[in-house]
């Protein structure tokens, strides 16, 4: 059973991530009064990309991208999906926080090796944006870990079953609001889509990726989407006892993200940081103080 979960949960995550990508394109199209591609379009793209002979810029170009996707796959083993969390006893929230670095780092090494300044600008923006949202996000996570007095994500989920969803319990309300405010930035959707901006910097880190590389990068993007949403549902919305409910909750968060994506223009990177470091950070900071004062 354990072995099955170990193999099954990354594949499930990939599947859901790719489904979300397809659904995102469809929903965006309907919002823009278009018919839109079929939901399976990302899969078609991936098959096509895998069959193309792309240019490789060196060993680190390959390894970095592989490392990036592998790192994201490993996170899905630690994140509870419903009750499926095959490796949650090998490390908790801190491990997840640090594993979330491997994806961007691998991508950064790989696209840095591609020797294209557009990629470098993209990575620079990516890291800056990460710096922007990590500040409030860490405050939120610390508030959660302090309030529940644990660093294990499965325990945070199971404690919410007793006390109610963290988003709606008293000392964590502010943290919940802050998390909602930074969620678009964590998912990388439109007001914060500064990293892959195709019109400004030729899709940034992806500029030299073609063929199998772009297929891996698409999968990595799908997984990042999955992880971002799943983390929110687990931490703030009480997770779920069974996978179906969990998936429905993810779907709701996903639609929120897509609606934001559909109606907002893109911010500049400095505007994005300024936004993220102002209201979300202040609210998250107030939330952490609230938790410290009311707790213990």
């Amino acid at each position, binding site marked *: 059973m354990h072995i099955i979960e170990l193999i099954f949960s990354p594949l499930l995550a990939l599947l859901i991530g790719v489904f979300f990508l397809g659904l995102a394109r469809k929903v965006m199209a309907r919002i823009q009064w278009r018919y839109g591609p079929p939901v399976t379009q990302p899969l078609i793209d991936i098959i096509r990309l895998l069959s*193309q002979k792309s240019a490789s810029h060196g060993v680190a170009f390959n390894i970095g991208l592989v490392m990036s996707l592998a790192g994201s796959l490993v996170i899905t083993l630690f994140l509870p999906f419903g009750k499926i969390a095959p490796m949650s006893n090998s490390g908790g929230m*801190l491990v997840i926080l640090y594993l979330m670095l491997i994806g961007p*780092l691998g991508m950064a090494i790989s696209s840095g090796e591609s020797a294209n300044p557009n990629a470098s600008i993209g990575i620079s923006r990516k890291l800056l944006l990460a710096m922007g949202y990590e500040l409030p996000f860490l405050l939120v996570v610390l508030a959660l870990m302090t309030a529940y007095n644990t660093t294990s994500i499965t325990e945070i989920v199971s404690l919410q079953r007793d006390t109610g969803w963290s988003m709606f319990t008293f000392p964590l309300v502010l943290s919940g609001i802050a998390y909602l405010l930074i969620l678009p930035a964590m998912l990388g959707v439109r007001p914060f889509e500064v990293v892959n901006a195709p019109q400004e910097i030729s899709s940034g880190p992806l500029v030299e990726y073609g063929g199998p590389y772009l297929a891996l990068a698409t999968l990595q993007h799908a997984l990042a989407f999955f992880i971002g949403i799943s983390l929110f549902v687990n931490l703030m919305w009480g997770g779920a006892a069974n996978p179906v409910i969990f998936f429905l909750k993810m779907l709701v968060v996903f639609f929120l993200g897509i609606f934001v994506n559909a109606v907002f223009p893109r911010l500049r990177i*400095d505007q994005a940081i300024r936004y993220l470091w102002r209201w979300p950070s202040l609210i998250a900071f107030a939330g952490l103080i609230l938790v410290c004062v009311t707790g213990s």
Partner: protein
Amino acid sequence: MTGMEILLLVAFGGVMLTYILGRISSSLRNTFAVVLSLVLVVIIALMYDKTGETIFYRGFFGIPMSFRIDALSWLFAMATSVLGCLSVIFSLSYMSDRKNISFYYSMLFLVNAGMLGVVFSGDLLSFFIFWEIMSWSTFLLISFNRGPAVAAGLKYIIMSIIGSMAMLAGTISLYTNYGTLNIADLSHLTVSASPGYQLFLLIIFGVAFGIKNAVMPLHTWLPDAYTEAPSPFSAVLSGMLTRMGIYGFLLIIYVVVGAARFLHAADSTVSSFNYVLAWLGAITIVIPTFIAMLQNDAKRLLAWHGIGQGGYMILGIAFGTNMGVAGGIFHTLNHAIYIVLLFMSVAAIQYRTGGVRDLNSLGGLIKKMPVAFIGALLGICGLIGVPLTNGFVSKWMIYKTLISGRAPFLAFAALIGSWGTILSVYKFLHNIFLGQLPEKYRDIKQSPFNMKLPIIVLSSTILLFGILPGLPLRVINKIVVSFGFDSLNISLWGIVSESGMLNTINLFAAILAGLIAVWLFFRIGARTIPVKQDDNYAAGAAVPRDRYSYTAKYYDPLFRMISPYLKDIFNTFYMKIADLTGYLSNGIRKIYTGYVGNYVMYIVLFISLMIFVQMKWSPW
């Protein structure tokens, strides 16, 4: 004659012998230097798991001077000797075309011997003497390159002397109070000390060790010193020498004062000192990490990280739980490994590019120097604390301590420091190794074998300690127990605490399986065609040579936001004081003209003033 005496004899004897051999033949000196450093490693390795104390000299005004060894000093000595050995091996080609190489090597050994003396000292007197030997020989090595290096060295030695004087005052005070300087005796005697006296001891020694470890308001010597010292010595300086401050903190807090006994007492001054120290550590993490982001000099960037990482160690040991102290010590060890690795990678680049360390003029060296790249990559992974590297485990322990100790704001400082680290070290990696290779480095060669060897050894150590952290933690656990804390619950591949656990071998297996799976998936796809860097997307144009890179102002949007807040005000303040002192001294020099007639006149004037005062008011 015990092992420790032999060791110190070998260490100090080697200093002179290296210099003398260097006068005879350089190859003889090089061989001797490598052999000597290896012998030191072997001797110390043989002393594993020994404890004891021997008096080696009684004659110093009746104060006995002694050596002692326990788990703490063994760990630091081992790290010192291994890193010293790697540094010597690395120096063989790095220093080969410089002048005064014999002097360099003998000073390197003197620093090494001084550090070994410090960690093996059984009493505070010999501690002080070895500390001074270490500090002064360091000064000579920092200033080795002349020019701006002399100013950097002067800055270092002046701050170091201030620290030493504080330490001397503390030592004298201890001697007058208790009549002994033996550390083991003192640790029993200080139980009865008043809280105020304990606080005095902690603060006065804390100034000395805080300067050495570059805790935030006392850090200003470090960036200049690291930048200007010869690179292999920068590695030793950042890896071990600066961390003698951590050794000192551990010694004074947990051995001499014995803080484990007081930390939970309600009215203890020790815990409030530790609380302040922890906050200093947090500040030391955050501000230097963000300053590092703005640097364009590879070594200066690493130097600011050296300060920042020191903050984690301080935070760990100041928080004063068994896991925190263990994490602090482990982080000291890990930091030594990866920062030495990073400095060596930079030095390898410098060696091949003719001393270039400006991040804006390098690039694309990954194809030319892959070993240095792997070293730098694993080094920055350790520095960030990416899982499976050693830095992750020690940072995890520190975070864990802070969170379960309900100090979320300290934990926040530590975590945000890590995220700031990513920005600057990625810039470091990108600007040196990634991007377009400039034309002038087209024919650059790999670094020689003796430069690769230390890099490979250290890189594999980073992974080894990251996957099997139980190896070093077993020794560290002994240290923690000897401080009077509870034993940690560790296994070879993980740590168990009451609120969550870490299992690195599972993590390793998962990541390895993930890598293999993704690699196989990648191989399913069509074959890829290797291309040169000129075959690159440039909107249809041919790639402009040497101009198709994005390195300068890498984080410009952030830079413009935060740079007004990140001035090194302490440095400015100290330099102002130094200027003022210089000004006053100049004023005094005006009086000392060197002309005897003037001095006679001063004496006559002074005596007449005295006589006048006596006649008018007759105070005497």
